């Protein structure tokens, strides 16, 4: 018991940092109803800036901390004014912050190098302040000060919101920006202040937390986002004091859980705890009745048009013939690249199905790919024939997706994005480090047999046959999605997006329709993951990590999340991005991976800003494969 108390108290300072970052999320959400996923990345950027200034440039620590915090404030202001304000709909805005997450992560990697172990700026002395002998607990000056600072800032902020005129304006703007504007509130300035304040808090928490961690790297602090999300959700995205209690509580519970699970030598238990908290908080969250969906762009209100059957057949026929010809002429490396195009197209297709048809935003398709990849590898280990193993991988991912979909049924799109991002983070630190699944730190080997009587997987012919196999799978998947979309299930799914109550009144179970959409999308992602593992003959966690999930979503959005041709276009873009810089998962060279990440993030932001329909949307409007329809007036909910 005494041990647990000591563990819990020892976790308090870290909890205070979770709280500080969560405050940033809450302050921003309170005023602009946008969920910021970029807080962890802002904190990480600030920590690097502080470290660079104070250690490399020998700037006094006070100035370094101040500069780092102001950097955060600046990022917040730029983010809001240039990339959030012009974008419509809170889901799209939230996805913009995902773009910032990977862009900042990449940028820091490019500027400061991706290497771990960069020393953190020492803000406070780490001398022991006091010890509690009976608990074997020692508190450093830094730990104690961090704790005091977090609580002090919260009280100050809470007072600010309640008593200052700007704070009151912020609450009014949060409640109804249009009404507040009509009353003469400076809505622009208020939101801008909130973003500056929120990102400043995240920056400060990033600077302060790094001395408590072993070293500074581009991942750890970004993964902190999940802790901040959990704390913010405990505060129900409104209450500052509750948020701090949530952060501190999380900090106290995690070391206890970690210790309790010690015998199994699991890693990533902190994230697992946070994930559980996030899921419980989301599902238990009281619905306000006000839906934050926001239509247009990413989640079009009406669902996606499907190309007419003859056009689809013509398109897929062309792809097949082109693939056949290219497979005959090119070199082995070329065949591998082509196989990658087909695989990434499959992955993007799963997002097209989920977002374009089911109308949900998932930030964890990478996890389903991982389930498929590792599942197929394990199946092959157990003697399942390779082709069957690929399908089995897909089926496992479908089951996983249905499992994720179950709580998702209660969630609004924005909340689902939170849940799935948390899942992706937890997969990075827990699932992909779990030995029974991943075998060893390099990954799980997967044996690929000869195809079509052609021997030798490393021989040119072997790669060519594999490319053809994946191509056929892709074409079949495209047909399946189009067929589903235009069939009975698709009718129900499309109807759901306009009115769930009217769909239910037609005799369709809303729960079952959504779940089936989730499972189908999971299957496609899992199949893609299995094919990817098969191509490389190894399944690795890196290939399916959070950055992958986000960039898949990013490229799906870039290519146009609404259409099947968009999926193939997305596959081409993903492959091009990995080719021009080197694949992040294979080439561990930090700079190129960082560059991909930066570019992906920036492109995602730019597309949401300037062409929310994506490239396929732009070209689709030009070709008009299906007559454009008049805009539909918004249909009100049930009277």
């Amino acid at each position, binding site marked *: 018991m005494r041990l647990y108390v000591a563990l819990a108290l020892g976790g308090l300072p870290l909890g205070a940092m979770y709280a500080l970052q969560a405050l940033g999320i809450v302050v921003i959400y309170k005023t602009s109803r946008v969920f910021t996923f970029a807080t962890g990345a802002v904190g990480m950027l600030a920590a690097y800036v502080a470290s660079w200034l104070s250690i490399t440039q020998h700037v006094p620590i006070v100035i370094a901390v101040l500069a780092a915090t102001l950097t955060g404030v600046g990022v917040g202001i730029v983010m809001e004014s240039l990339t959030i304000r012009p974008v419509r709909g809170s889901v799209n805005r939230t996805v913009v912050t995902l773009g910032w997450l990977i862009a900042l992560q990449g940028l820091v990697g490019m500027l400061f190098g991706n290497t771990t172990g960069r020393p953190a700026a020492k803000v406070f002395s780490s001398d022991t302040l006091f010890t509690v002998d009976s608990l074997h607990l020692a508190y450093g000056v830094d730990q104690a000060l961090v704790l005091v600072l977090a609580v002090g800032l919260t009280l100050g902020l809470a007072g600010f919101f309640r008593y200052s005129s700007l704070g009151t304006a912020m609450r009014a703007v949060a409640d109804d920006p249009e009404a507040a504007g009509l009353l003469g509130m400076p809505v622009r300035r208020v939101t801008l202040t909130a973003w500056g304040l929120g990102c400043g808090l995240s920056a400060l928490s990033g600077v302060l937390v790094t001395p408590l961690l072993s070293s500074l790297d581009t991942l750890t602090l970004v993964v902190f986002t999940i802790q901040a999300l959990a704390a913010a959700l405990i505060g129900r995205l409104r209450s500052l004091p509750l948020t701090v209690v949530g952060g501190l509580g999380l900090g106290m519970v995690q070391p206890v859980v970690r210790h309790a699970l010690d015998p199994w030598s699991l890693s990533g238990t902190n994230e697992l705890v946070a994930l559980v908290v996030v899921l419980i908080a989301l599902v238990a969250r009281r619905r306000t009745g006000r839906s934050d969906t926001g239509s247009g762009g990413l989640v079009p209100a009406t669902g996606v048009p499907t190309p007419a059957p003859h056009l689809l057949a013509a398109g897929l026929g062309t792809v097949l013939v082109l693939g056949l010809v290219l497979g005959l002429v090119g070199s082995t490396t070329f065949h591998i690249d082509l196989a990658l195009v087909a695989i990434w197209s499959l992955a993007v297709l799963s997002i097209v199905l989920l977002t374009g048809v089911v109308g949900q935003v998932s930030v964890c398709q990478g996890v389903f790919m991982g389930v498929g990849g590792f599942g197929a590898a394990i199946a092959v280990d157990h003697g399942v024939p390779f082709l069957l193993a690929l399908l089995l991988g897909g089926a496992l991912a479908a089951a996983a997706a249905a499992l994720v979909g179950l709580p998702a049924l209660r969630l609004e799109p924005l909340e689902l994005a939170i849940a799935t991002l948390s899942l992706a983070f937890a997969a990075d630190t827990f699932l992909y480090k779990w030995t029974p699944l991943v075998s060893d730190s390099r990954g799980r080997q997967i044996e690929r047999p000869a195809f079509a009587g052609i021997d030798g997987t490393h021989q040119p012919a072997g790669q060519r046959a594999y490319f053809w196999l994946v191509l056929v799978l892709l074409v079949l998947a495209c047909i399946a999605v189009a*067929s589903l979309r235009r*069939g009975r299930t698709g009718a129900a799914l499309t*109807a759901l997006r306009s009115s769930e109550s009217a769909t239910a009144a037609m*005799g*369709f179970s809303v729960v079952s329709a959504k779940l089936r959409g989730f499972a189908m999308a999971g299957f496609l992602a899992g199949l893609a993951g299995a094919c990817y593992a098969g191509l490389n003959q190894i399944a690795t966690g890196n290939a399916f990590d959070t950055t992958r999930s986000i960039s898949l979503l990013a490229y799906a959005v870039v290519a146009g999340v609404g259409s099947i041709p968009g999926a193939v276009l997305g596959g081409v873009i993903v492959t091009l991005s990995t080719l021009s810089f080197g694949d992040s998962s294979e080439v561990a060279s930090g700079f190129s991976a960082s560059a991909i990440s930066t570019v992906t993030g920036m492109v995602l932001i730019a597309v949401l800003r300037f062409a929310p329909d994506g490239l396929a949307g732009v070209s689709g409007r030009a070709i008009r494969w299906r007559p454009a329809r008049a805009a539909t007036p918004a249909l*009100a909910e049930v009277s």
Partner: protein
Amino acid sequence: MAAVLELRDIGVRFGSFDAVDGVSLSVHAGEVVGLIGPNGAGKTVTFNVVSGLQKPTRGTVLLDGRDVTGVPTASRTRLGLARTFQVVQLFAGMTVLENVMVAGHRFTRSGTLSDSLWLPSRGRALREARERALGCLSYVGLAHLVDVDAGSLPVGQARLVELARALCLKPRVLLLDEPASGLDPGETGELVTLLGRIRADLGCAMLLVEHDMGVVMPLCDHVVVMNFGQVLGAGSPAEIRDDADVLEAYLGAVAE
């Protein structure tokens, strides 16, 4: 004659406000029952309790004598309940035919797997739903609009699409929530004729929430008057009209 739909002592409480307080009514097979009352009387809430969109705080809903209070909307539809909405809820981005086909699928069988794998059952389901939907659309006189985008229809035609959608479900009880609101007198007259024809042809019972006495009087066999969440009176349309002392205020307030 047994009641095909029966409400027993239904209460719906929002916080400390009783939106519906002890409402009982029954609809017999083939009977048309009107539910009238001023705005805020609790008609639509009662209606939503019947169709399953609103959980009652107390009371039971019986369909053919079977307790369906806890049964979700979709399953009630399969038990023979169909409804239209006060604010038209057509599916956006779909044509008129596609809208009605969603209802047409109520009697078809094709799962996710057969839909994605293009199995024969998928095509069969589509053909059946299409046939059924076309039949219902021509019944309500919209056969010429099948390929029009549902979102572009004026409210009169949109209400007819909703009606076709409901008919497509082969209802034994048809729930109509203010079917005449937003219609001009000419359209209202056509609607009354159409509803009379539906009743004669299909023999389904109807529960009708309506403000327009021009719809209620000729159609209904029985009228229930609600105010402040309670049943104020019930009787034949003539009785209700003559019961001036009690009801003048309400009919006066609602007659438009």
